[in-house]
């Protein structure tokens, strides 16, 4: 377990670069992370629905949930858990907003990042 002090926060983008009630995808070889923005908060989940691995980032965001575009499972953004009666859980990642920027928690060996060229 990493102590909070060892956690490295990576700046991902500005909050307003994520559409309100929308999402952005952070690409990784080990599975993309979806960053969601609701009315008041930002959340990060593995971009993989626990049902059939649909890209949650492409779903409709409403309240504190996202609806998977493939088969309409509703995933709670704060817990990653599917809403009843469906059962399953998408992995969560630590994320925070500081002075209008979004930071994703990463291990301390992750040194830098940058946005794609496009």
């Amino acid at each position, binding site marked *: 377990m990493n102590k909070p002090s060892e956690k490295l926060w*990576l700046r991902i983008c500005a909050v307003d670069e994520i559409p309100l*009630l929308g999402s*952005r995808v952070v690409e990784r070889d*080990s599975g993309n992370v979806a960053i969601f923005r609701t009315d008041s908060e930002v959340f990060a989940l593995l971009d993989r629905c626990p049902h059939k691995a649909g890209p949650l980032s*492409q779903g409709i965001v*409403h*309240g504190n*949930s996202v609806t998977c575009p493939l088969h*309409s499972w509703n995933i709670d953004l704060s817990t990653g858990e599917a809403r009843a009666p469906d059962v399953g859980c998408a992995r969560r990642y630590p994320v925070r907003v500081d002075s209008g920027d979004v930071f994703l928690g990463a291990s301390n060996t992750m040194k830098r990042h940058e946005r794609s060229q496009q």
Partner: protein
Amino acid sequence: MKKPRLVVVGNGMAGIRTVEELLALAPDMYEITVFGSEPHPNYNRILLSPVLAGEQSFNEIVLNPVSWYEDNGIRLHMGKTITRIDRARRVVMADDGTEEPYDRLLLATGSQPFILPIPGKDLDGVVTYRDIRDTERMIDAAKTKQHAVVIGGGLLGLEAANGLKLRGMDVSVVHLGDWLLDRQLDPTAGGLLRRSLEERGLTFLLAKQTAELVANEAGHVSSVRFKDGDEVPADLVVMAVGIRPNTALAESAGLHCNRGIVVSDVLQTFDPRIYAVGECVSHRGIAYGLVAPLFEQAKVCANHLAQMGIGQYKGSVLSTKLKVTGIDLFSAGDFMGGEGTEDIVLSDPAGGVYKKLVIKDDKLVGACLYGDTTDGAWYFKLLREGRTINDLRDHIMFGESAIGDSGVQGQSRAAAMQDSDEVCGCNGVCKGTIVKAIKEKGLFTVDDVKKHTKAASSCGSCTGLVEQILMNTLGGSFQETPKTKAVCGCTDRTHEEVRRAIREHHLLTHRAAYDFLEWRTPNGCATCRPAVNYYLISTWPHEATDDPQSRFINERAHANIQKDGTFSVVPQMKGGVTNPSELRRIADVADKYHIPMVKVTGGQRIDLLGVKKEDLVRVWRDLGMQSGHAYGKSIRTVKTCVGSEFCRFGTQNSTQMGIDLETMLANMWAPHKVKLAVSGCPRNCAEAGIKDVGVIAVDSGWELYVGGNGGIKTEVAEFFVKVKTPEEVKEYAGAFLQLYREEAHYLERTVHYLARVGLDHAKRRVVDDAANRRALYERLLYALEGLPDPWAARIKGTQAREYIPIKLITERKLDEQAV
């Protein structure tokens, strides 16, 4: 501020259902206290008969265990009977001295069995059949006693008799009427029922009036004596001659009662702080004793307790079903018939099948089925809808499958299906799974079944079948999906209401719509947001804001999402006509972006499958073609045949007609997808007969057909109008589509829209009324005017971020940080 207090008197199905509905609407509004006379939490009274028959145990029929009350913060007083309401002080008092103040009071005191006022009614061994205590007493009696007499040949009496017989007693049923279930069946069906129950070993004493219950020396009942002097031995007598509403408490509090606590259409008593639901109430002079009406009442009552103030209870049409395993009977409405009615009867006594349909003024008003009840749900639906049945009359007796409608609307033969038979082909759900979920989880509606089993939750074509399974499993407690349905769980408003509000109050944004219509959720859900978005932009073209975040991904990204998260790209190819230059570019793009599959679609277009989202904009740019709209609730394709240019049979230039229509309708959003086809002669190679608008050229002009569908259930388009010129084709087709765009519910195809409003309605508005047709056509052209091609707009940079992922260059395992 302290929460207002809601006190519920009656811990039964009606009271608790109201509380459940209320919690769903306004979870934290009240401090809730429930009083129940019985020492049990809420259980499913309908299932007492299976308990008596030994098919289920008490624990299996509990609907809300004690933990449910705790979880919802409800104070539960079991085994306490409220004896007094002090309306001036707003306090109720229980028999043990408990006092509880209220701000709102809900009376759900139910009913009590009617006891015949005859000598011996209070003897040992005389029971009624109402609650679990009665049931347990009967089960105990069956262990030691031999002769049971059930007084009353109604639903409850027969279920009691059947249960006692299964528990090994000799059972006689005494009935005052000339036939069994005389409130539910006609004499013929009653006779068939009697015969099959007699085969199970029950004895019937019909047209007999009970005079006295005779005691032995020990003061226990020993026989039943009748008015005519006959006497039969009896160690157990079950009185099941009817129920009467429990109104004593309400009457003592001075509430107006008349064979039930009199309530308004919002379930309010004469004291506005006091509501009443269930078997204890009298609504428009009727006291209901079946569960479906109680649930409808609960919904309306909860809505008003939650201060939503919408919804009215207008009474229920009833259907009944006997819960005796192996006996199928069904009746609804005016099944006896009489003055001014006609009967259609099918009678096969040897085969044990009898069906009678009662028709008045070309409408089905009653049905009585015995032996084969598979079409009960369908008849009940026709009856409730009150639709004219002229067109069905020849076949109606043979059931819904006989009219060839076993798809979308369709109930095929749910009862005849095996448990292992698949009901929902999309999600692979078998009948057994659905039945099990209904029984174990206490489901009552199609929506419940959808949520728990996923059946009927994808394409919806098995909804009718699921409804029928519900009906067969639940019998009288089945709740039909209401005809006017709320858009989704975020609101109680129907599609019409939402649309009307947007039109009449000039609402232009989602926020304005949700605020004005008092949405329960902050920003809707995945069901209502796309619908509201469509209503906004279709009602106020060029004014309302189209919100990309309220569109399904396909319409947001302008490409079709595939199961692996890649997309498919279908460029526009009007009328299915292309050229070498386009084909070369398509081939180049497929090479350059390593597109794994290139396929011709059903709509005569070329599909590039497996495109990565981040490549979409570049793919479109390199193609240099417009969006083919193969992904939206929008115009899709206009399919054409070769037509008079080349074909030796062609009568008109169908290809050009198709291109013109597709040009006119480009970028048109609609309630659902819209497909057209134009054929050059009646051989109809473009398959215009299964399109939303199909055009067939004939030598003297063009025939227009509407409402066809080649999808989930094949529907043949109906003839709409015949016109002479291509201009007229555009005007009539455009006006029809605009009517559909203005009136259809979101996600309603033309065929379902027409089934709802009637083809005649569309003809009146478009064909007969020239001024209205032109107005519709102009509104369509105005809505489409100046709409940009979505691909071109994105190549120019619109919503660029939608397509650009954020990349992490240093790859480390974020997983170590996963919480």
